[in-house]
């Protein structure tokens, strides 16, 4: 990871812009702030940014349009700030390829954790080599829709998942037929969960198996690997 990542913050509220810049700078980041998309476009060629924090509710051109433009420029990761419960904005944003989102009013530490997780992921993937976001991921008859964060059974029935279960499943389907140790899983799961991680992962796996109708004693979909790891045994089809 870059020792001092450069973040572009786009938010129309001056106070938030200043406070957020100060907060992120205190966490060892370099921050450039823009008050609207016009300002952001002006600032874009002037620096090399590692990540953009983008408020979707902006005066003038909307954040979504700017995100679309940004996608055309570079594979810079985007963390979106959406209005509370604006489901459609969130879905469109994630379909556009935003890497994460947070609802306003956000918790600054949560934002920091997400920014770090996204930066870690993009640097691990070599940066710029990102796959376009999948609309639907199919495996063993099941369908995972990342933008809507939902799982559909082979019969087309929506099967609700907890946040932890969803993230675990997404990590597994993105790496099918690869053994993932608990440590790897913990890393990939953004370290978001509190509590004893080992146990949390085992619990999430057993809950997931139950929901995926995968027999816990003789699992065929999420297999346990001796020595402490899991593997998704299925052909995965991205659309």
């Amino acid at each position, binding site marked *: 990871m870059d020792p001092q990542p450069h973040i572009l913050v786009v938010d129309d509220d001056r*106070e*938030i812009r200043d406070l957020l810049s100060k907060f992120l700078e205190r966490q060892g980041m370099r921050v450039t702030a823009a008050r609207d998309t016009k300002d952001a476009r002006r600032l874009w060629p002037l620096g090399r940014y590692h990540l953009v924090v983008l408020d979707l509710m902006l005066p003038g051109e909307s954040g979504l349009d700017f995100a679309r433009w940004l996608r055309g420029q570079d594979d810079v990761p985007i963390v979106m700030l959406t209005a509370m419960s604006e489901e459609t904005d969130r879905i469109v944003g994630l379909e556009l390829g935003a890497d994460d989102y947070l609802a306003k009013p956000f*918790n600054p530490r949560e934002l920091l954790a997400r920014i770090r997780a996204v930066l870690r992921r993009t640097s691990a993937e070599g940066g710029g080599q990102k796959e376009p976001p999948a609309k639907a991921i199919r495996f063993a008859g099941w369908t995972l829709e990342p933008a809507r964060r939902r799982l559909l059974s082979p019969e087309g029935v*929506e099967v*609700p998942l*907890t946040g932890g279960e969803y993230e675990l499943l997404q990590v597994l389907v993105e790496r099918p037929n690869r053994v993932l140790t608990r440590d790897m899983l913990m890393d990939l799961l953004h370290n978001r969960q509190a509590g004893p991680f080992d146990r949390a992962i085992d619990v999430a796996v057993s809950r997931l198996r139950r929901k995926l*109708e995968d027999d816990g004693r003789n699992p065929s979909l999420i297999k346990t690997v001796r020595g402490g790891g899991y593997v998704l045994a299925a052909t995965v089809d991205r659309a």
Partner: protein
Amino acid sequence: MSASQADAGWQGTAVAPPSVRRWRFWPRSLAGRTALVLLLGLTLVQGLGLLIHALDRVDLQKFAQAREIAGRSFAAWRTVVLAPPDRRAAMLADIDLPQGLLASLDETPAVPLNAAPPPLTVMRLFRLEQLATAGPRGFRPQEARFAVLGPPGNFAASLRLPDGPWLNLRVRLPPPRPWHSETFLIAFAVMTLAAAALTLWAVRRLTLPVRALAEAADRLGRGVNAPPLPETGPAEVATAAHAFNTMAERIRRFVSDRTQMLAAISHDLRTPITRLRLRAEFMEDEEQRRKMLADLDEMEAMITATLAFARDDAAAEPSVPLDLAALCRTVLDEAADARPEAAEHVAYAGPEHLTVQARPTALKRALANLVGNALTYGGAARLTLARPEGSGRPVRLAVEDDGPGIPATELESVFQPFRRLEVSRNRETGGTGLGLPIARNILRAHGGDVVLRNRLGGGLAAVVTLPG
């Protein structure tokens, strides 16, 4: 839907709306009542018309018969008086006499001397005076006697020929026959049936808009964005539809104004809360910082709940097939993850999978509110899910806790927005007073409901029904 109806639905007994049936045959629908009244009126008018027609016919018949009898009587007298005495009987027999008139030549009069004459109306109707004085002198009856004979209206006349014998005329009118024409009766029946059919058709057609109005009002009750009524048809119907649409439009505007206002307030509050959260990060006092962040979290939760209640998000979300069993377990798992200390008091009992048609986010919020309440106020959340007992029967779901329950009088009132019990206010449990109203709104929007009841062994149960 009232709570009593919800209870009835839960127990599976259909309860008819309360109504006092005064008359057994009084129809319930407007169309039925209007048709019945119109048909009764039609029957009455037709009956009276038929009676008037019959009476008129009887009168006419009587008049025609009387005229014919008078004329023939005169002809009989003339024949007899002009004929030679030895041929009188034969010539009288040759005359074609109408029904009801008998003529005979006798030595004695049929009417006794000094008998009371028939009433003047009969005398005039049958022109009896003229019969007594008709013809040239020398051909008039030597003597004429008239008398009532038999039932009223019947009479006899005795006319004495110049040379002695009597011509006795007995009039016995046949009973009146008002229904002599079959075609008339058939035509009458056809007319009546046609009028009745027309009445029924017209009434049904005219009351159709009333039903449409009732259905539209029902739709509006379920969702403010129901399509408007067509403003067509008769003037009154079009006016009513227009008035209804105007009312619906006003309600829509009111709701959208209120929604926009709440959205604006919450949007405007979002910025200061975000700023405060950021400022809190620069606070030196760790304890104060933690408390401030907790306050901000509470504020945000209240705004989120108010917004969810006001915007009625459930209406906007599409309904999809959903695994309710998985949803229940998800809600319980998330509640247990959020409060690890209460995790052992969270339990699920029910099928592994149960598909229903529902709005996932909204239904999850409703169940999360019920489970959250059970954990907060009752220290436990045991969820039982039961498959419907048959097709068309509801899915049943109950969330039970180990708390003290709530007074029976409050079981229903806690579903009112911002209603909180004293225990909840006094305790440091927070709460917006919107959890239960939101849950009920969402479940009712699904065609189900939720009620609370105190369990026999203690504790409270939130009982949910959902269409299966």
